[in-house]
């Protein structure tokens, strides 16, 4: 960490956690429910409080925004997690509103534009209408979908019960397939006016194109009336890394407006998570960002451990860090390879990167039993100790083979003129915009903000390791490529230290039963995942299943800044810019 680029320094507040009740008397009260923290803000004063927090107290980064349906209490709640990009603990704000068909809460997109997609998600899944939102359409479900699936009174078809384990499996578990058991419609209530066969798919498209044209008109003015060209990239397009669609409005080749369309891989992971017991969710988290399952495990384990108030033993902490950093290396190799593919470097860089990634996956397979769906973390530790020979394999890889191979990869890529021409100065995201749009991870750090959860609010044992928070200044595609190479080297440093220091001992604090009750309360566990800040917001009501299980998905929220990066660029750059964000659709669509 040397010279820091020119970013307006965040104001340094005196107290670490300000007393908001005193500052905003009457509008803000502390959340006094047992197991809860933070402040409850009156809805009509939300904007005023948020603006003061951002401008006066330095909470410039909106990490997570989500809603909770407290059905028994007849309330809906919107939860905001705010942080300072200079580091330190966060602040939790909550806004409550009486439960109704449509709950209205003011939108904070004018203060934190990074809330745009998250508010759309809360509207889509929970039916919370954010007044003042510039483009409040559904985001994961399709336009015309009946109901809001994450509401507790919305029942999903095909499932015989609202909570697992299902009673039909034991002791009289005669096998019946899901289709035989619960035909569509049996436990699903459509509104009286809803006719699925009458649904018109073009309705959503019309709203999308209208929103796109409106945004482009507002941004570009209407000096000369020409007809811009509307182009859809995807959803079936090889460079979208999955099923992802981008609608762009073009003037010639120049992008006037852009809207990302997602949800093609949506499976309502959070609803599934609320039906599961706590331990059942662990393998499901593998399937979020399926390239870095160990990191996903880590975040979820941290959140539930906060609720259970347990800590893993020393050896387990080291194993967690080793696995999380190996995941970061594997993910960044994949990201670099895929980005180069998107730039047209057909497969040589991709396969060079994949070779080393394979070796990391070999280690995962040895340790956890699976290459990608690791399911390795448990509450209070990890599933099993390293098998014979695994530690040597890790040492050989990170101390000898990887450094050499990374030199090779750098020689192959970074001076290449084509990569420089396609990357330098393209898709720029300024430091101020990166914060405003809640960008996280390499995207934020490539824009000059040295913010890394491992340093800003150290979790696990990251405070024991020597490593640098990588930062690059230009915020373009080329810097986002370089920063991933830098981060691989830093992760190797951490693993090298960890394999030297790892102590002997147990790897699980205490074996937990297959089903357990978790004390009521809320917890937000966040880790620095390879793609950015990965957060798990878990609310327990004391039953064996979580009441609310929300994921702050870095790929999803990083896409909020996608439009900003693309405006004024050529249409061919969209593919490269998307590649440089590094998304995984399993996490975007959840």
């Amino acid at each position: 960490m040397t010279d820091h680029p020119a970013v307006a320094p965040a104001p340094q507040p005196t107290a670490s956690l300000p007393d908001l009740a005193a500052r905003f008397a009457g509008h803000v009260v502390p959340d006094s429910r047992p197991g809860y923290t933070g402040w409850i803000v009156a809805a009509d004063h939300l904007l005023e409080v948020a603006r003061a927090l951002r401008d006066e107290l330095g909470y410039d980064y909106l990490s997570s925004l989500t809603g909770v349906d407290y059905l028994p209490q007849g309330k809906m709640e919107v939860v905001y997690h705010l942080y300072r990009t200079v580091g330190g603990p966060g602040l939790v704000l909550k806004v409550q509103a009486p439960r109704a068909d449509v709950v209205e809460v003011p939108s904070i997109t004018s203060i934190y534009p990074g809330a745009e997609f998250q508010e759309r998600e809360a509207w889509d899944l929970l039916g919370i209408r954010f007044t003042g939102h510039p483009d409040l359409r559904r985001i994961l479900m399709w336009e015309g979908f009946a109901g809001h699936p994450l509401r507790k009174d919305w029942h999903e078809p095909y499932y015989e019960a609202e909570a697992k384990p299902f009673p039909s499996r034991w002791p009289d578990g005669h096998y019946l397939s899901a289709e035989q058991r619960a035909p569509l419609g049996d436990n699903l209530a459509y509104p009286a006016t809803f006719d699925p066969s009458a649904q018109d798919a073009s309705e959503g498209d019309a709203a999308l194109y209208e929103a796109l044209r409106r945004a482009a008109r507002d941004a570009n003015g209407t000096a000369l009336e020409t007809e811009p060209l509307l182009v859809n990239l995807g959803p079936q397009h090889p460079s979208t890394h999955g099923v992802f669609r981008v609608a762009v409005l073009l003037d010639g080749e120049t992008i006037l407006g852009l809207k990302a369309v997602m949800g093609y891989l949506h499976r309502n992971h959070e609803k599934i998570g609320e039906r599961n017991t706590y331990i059942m969710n662990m393998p499901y988290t593998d399937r979020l960002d399926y390239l870095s399952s160990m990191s996903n495990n880590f975040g979820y384990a941290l959140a539930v451990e906060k609720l259970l108030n347990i800590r893993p033993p020393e050896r387990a902490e080291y194993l967690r860090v080793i696995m999380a950093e190996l995941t970061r290396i594997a993910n960044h190799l994949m990201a670099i390879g895929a980005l180069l593919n998107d730039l047209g470097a057909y497969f040589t860089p991709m396969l060079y990167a994949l070779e080393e990634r394979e070796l990391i996956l070999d280690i995962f397979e040895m340790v956890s039993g699976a290459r990608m769906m690791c399911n390795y973390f448990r509450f209070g530790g990890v599933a099993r100790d390293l098998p014979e020979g695994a530690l040597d394999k890790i040492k050989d890889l990170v101390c000898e083979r990887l450094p050499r191979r990374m030199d090779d990869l750098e020689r192959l890529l970074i001076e290449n003129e084509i990569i420089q021409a396609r990357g330098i100065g393209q898709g720029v995201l300024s430091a101020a915009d990166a914060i405003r749009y809640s960008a996280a991870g390499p995207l934020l750090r490539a824009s000059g903000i040295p913010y890394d959860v491992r340093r800003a609010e150290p979790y696990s044992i990251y405070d024991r390791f020597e490593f640098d928070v990588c930062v690059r200044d230009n915020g373009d595609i080329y810097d986002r490529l370089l920063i991933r190479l830098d981060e691989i080297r830093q992760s190797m440093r951490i693993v090298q230290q960890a394999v030297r220091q790892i102590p002997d001992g147990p790897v699980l604090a205490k074996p937990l039963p297959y089903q357990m009750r978790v004390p009521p309360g809320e917890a937000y566990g966040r880790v620095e995942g390879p793609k950015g800040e990965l957060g798990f917001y878990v609310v327990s009501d004391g039953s064996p299943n979580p009441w609310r299980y929300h994921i702050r998905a870095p790929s999803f929220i990083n896409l909020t800044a996608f439009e900003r990066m693309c405006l004024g660029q050529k249409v061919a750059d969209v593919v490269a810019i998307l590649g440089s964000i590094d998304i995984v659709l399993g996490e975007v669509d959840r």
Partner: protein
Amino acid sequence: MRASVTRDTENARSTMYGKGIIKGLGVTLRRFIETYLDDLRWWGRRYGTREGIAHRASKDGRGIFTVQYPEEKIPVPEEFRFLPFLVYDELPTGERRLRCTACGICSRVCPPQCIWIVRAAYPDTGRPKPEPAEFSIDPDLCMNCGLCAEFCPFDAIKMDHEYELASYQRRVLDLTRLAKSAAYYEQIRPVNAARENAARAAKATARPGVTA
């Protein structure tokens, strides 16, 4: 942090004489040549042998990396998991006795709920008998997470190593397909089996009269 790579935006475009591309081509050319050098050094033992596969993926491996599946197969590690199976012990009489007691823990911890168990009953009294009458696993639902094996208190359900499972139809695994011998389990997971056998033996000596 500033890494070894420095960046001069001003000059980036002016220094384009193809140096970067030639350097990159040099990297790929070296890899190409190293493959043949290694082939010579190993003289035929590089492909189709366990050591050859291990060497290609080791820290000293250079050149080609690819494994020629299905002619060559990477040996799977002990912890590798795929679908679950049920372990039976062969009694001296030749009878096969499943370790499963139909306690239902696996079916209740299973995240996608793909395990169905019918508990057996004594025909005369109708009271539950500690063994399964039916045991079905839907492999289309199974997510290979291994929680069933992890939480089974009787070492009765374990994860298999078999991964070539392509078939022409959907099928449900029932008791005939699921049951595999303890000898097979000891063969695919020797370290785990030895540890569990020792733990069961210790338990049996601590409580004589209760057979493992």
